[in-house]
């Protein structure tokens, strides 16, 4: 146990390992960047239709279906599938095939939670909002979204955390990220155990930090719920 910790600490505490284009700093940054881009795209794709469909009370079956597809879709397979397409379209290796897989992974939690949260707005709330003279967009933005904010943000958080964790797969198709340490470590499990451990720990740490930060935002935006009796 101690040897494992020493390996890990030895690698992380060596300043040289943080520098350069293959250093921890660069790979962590690339890891965050692809996660960020994938989360933004997934949100842009999933959030608006979920909002509109839930407001109109349409397609409840579709929302469940999308959730199930999401669970059944292995990201590894998506990368493999997208890789030749990406190459033939000129988007190359690395970033885009990985990003597509991450977006696919991120869509279902955002869609499902947004849909469920908004669809579960109490009828009386919607009725009151319309009754006092809110337009449909106002009912959505001033009542339904704030009321469902905790559920929506939970979906967003699940997506983001899964994306951060899964972005490691990008290393398999040549995207330099924290997953690259795992790949390098796996290639030489005895000689490069320090790299394997560093990759695993940093990926886990990054996922946990993202989870924590979004949780904080969630608590801040839905403070009124803590005062519910």
């Amino acid at each position, binding site marked *: 146990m101690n040897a494992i910790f020493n390996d890990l600490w030895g690698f992380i505490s060596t300043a040289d390992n943080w520098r350069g284009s293959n250093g921890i700093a660069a790979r962590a940054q690339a890891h965050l960047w692809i996660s960020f881009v994938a989360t933004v795209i997934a949100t842009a794709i999933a959030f608006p239709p979920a909002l509109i469909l839930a407001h109109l009370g349409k397609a409840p079956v579709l929302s469940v279906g999308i959730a199930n597809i999401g669970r059944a879709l292995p990201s590894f397979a998506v990368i493999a599938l997208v890789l030749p397409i990406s190459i033939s379209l000129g988007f190359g290796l690395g970033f885009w095939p990985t990003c597509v897989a991450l977006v696919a992974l991120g869509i279902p939690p955002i869609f499902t939670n947004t849909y469920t949260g908004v669809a579960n707005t109490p009828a*009386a709330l919607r009725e*009151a*909002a*319309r009754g*006092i*003279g809110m*337009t449909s967009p106002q009912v959505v933005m001033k009542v339904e979204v704030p*009321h469902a904010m905790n559920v929506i943000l939970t979906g967003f958080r699940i997506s983001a955390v899964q994306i951060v964790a899964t972005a490691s797969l990008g290393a398999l198709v040549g995207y330099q990220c924290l997953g690259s340490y795992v790949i390098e470590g796996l290639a030489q499990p005895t000689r490069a155990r320090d790299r394997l451990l560093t990759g695993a720990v940093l990926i886990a740490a990054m996922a946990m930090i993202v989870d924590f930060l979004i949780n904080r935002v969630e608590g801040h935006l839905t403070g*009124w719920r803590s005062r*519910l009796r």
Partner: protein
Amino acid sequence: MTSAAAISLDEVSKVFPGSVSPAVNRLTLTIPQGQILALVGPSGCGKTTTLRMINRLEEPTAGQITVLGHDHRSAKPHELRRNIGYVIQQIGLFPHHSVRRNMSAVLELLKWSPDRIEQRINELTDLLGLDPALLDRYPSELSGGQQQRVGVARALAADPPILLMDEPYSAVDPVIRKHLHSELLQVQARVTKTIVIVTHDIDEAITLADQVVVMAEGGTIEQQGTPEELLAHPATEFVREFLGRERGLRRLGLRTVGQILRSPSRSSVPADLEPEDLAPEDLARVTADTPLREALDTILTSGQTRAVVCADGQKIGFITIEHIAEALRP
């Protein structure tokens, strides 16, 4: 101007999609300005649908609705609704906003300035007897009665000439309900709105309304009249049954001792009042504000046939069982 129509419905029908029989059937109704009108009837009589057609939460299938002289379809629905206060049974306060922001919801839609909103919130707090300390709480921290008051405050915020109330007191317990009834009447005495209230409780209608409209299943009007007219002369068997028992006693509840004293002035002794009538100390006492129903009960409980009427501790007259019986005579 109190007799002018604030709202009128002309041959209005509503057939819901997928339904054969109409929920509201060729209903014609005039709602006078500045009065409280109650729509009562059993569930399924279309009273709520009728209310919801006024602010276009439901669109009529046929007929015309005029609100303050304009066809109610001449403005966009959300603009119409901002000028019509709306209170529902479940209240529907926004749980994610403070009481203050709930009360200013319509004002924000109307883009009032923060200063003006602040001033209006103070007026409303005063009008509805709300504790200003509640303004920064969330609705879930309020009691049912307080939530109901905030719901009315939100509806009255923009000072709309019309207030629609859909079973507003069904969810509160009977004691609080009684309080809220008298509060509504006090508010109405100060602001004089045209109020349409839907209820299945005929006693609530009698307590609150200037005009009561009894509706029957199938969305038709059985009878419209003052509470007194309804109780004295129910037009149909349906109305008679709906009004229930003790119609005479309930009519007595509508009038006070002061209204049948020979002399309307409370300070002068009526001419026909003999001095010896004022003497007996064993008679029960009532005041001019006492409802006749309560006065009758007081008399019967005292084992006598009359009671002394007092004002400020002074005996100003007496009231007998005969007086009370006379009040019910046509």
